């Protein structure tokens, strides 16, 4: 199952709620303002860093670039994908849940 999160973890509970319900083995894709959750060194980074042992976390590259977030600033273990990778993740998983 693919979960997408499109809100900043600093302003919204979406990422936290997603992590609370995502099962081990799930894929999580951060898009739009959700990509701020991928930043290393923030007060929320531990929450996501700890989750990466149980789930695979991805961040949408075009949204990182729009916001000026280079890959070397991300929590280690987060994979960056493009829209094509987003499509692949949607197809590879049996369903997609958008945490808006």
């Amino acid at each position, binding site marked *: 199952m693919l979960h997408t999160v499109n809100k900043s973890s600093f302003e919204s509970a979406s990422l936290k709620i997603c992590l609370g319900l995502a099962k081990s083995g799930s894929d999580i894709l951060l898009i739009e303002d959700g990509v701020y959750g991928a930043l290393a060194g923030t007060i929320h980074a531990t929450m996501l860093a700890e989750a990466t042992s149980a789930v695979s976390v991805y961040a949408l590259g075009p*949204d990182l*670039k*729009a916001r000026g977030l280079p890959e070397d600033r991300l929590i280690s273990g987060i994979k960056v994908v493009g829209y094509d990778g987003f499509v692949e993740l949607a197809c590879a998983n049996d369903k997609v849940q958008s945490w808006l």
Partner: protein
Amino acid sequence: MSETKKFMYINRRPPYGTVYPLEGLEVVLIGAAFEQDVCMAFISDGVFQLKQGQDTIESGMKNFSPTYRALGDYEVTRIYVERESLEERGLTEADLMPLTWEDEDDDWAEKPSIQIVSRTQLSDLLEEQDVVFNF
């Protein structure tokens, strides 16, 4: 309209996810023509609006970040960024676009517009205002 009021534009949202930052900036630029006592504050995710290196080509949106560099020309010279908001997000001043203005009373010397202030200082500044906009 002979009065001069203190206007503060508070920016609390990250860019691109919503249009509020872009449309908020349009208010500031238009407002500059009214010769009021204007400042901007960037707090919470609003500090991300000033992040260096924004590149929207792949996402197809309009990159409006160069507009912040024009603020000095519009005589918006006081741009407050909350220190705690930067720290919570793992950012430092070096992550922000350098914004400047030219001081005509000082032989057009180029001076920095961004001032990093504490939450307490910002709270004091907020209290001094006459009109507060929030984008």
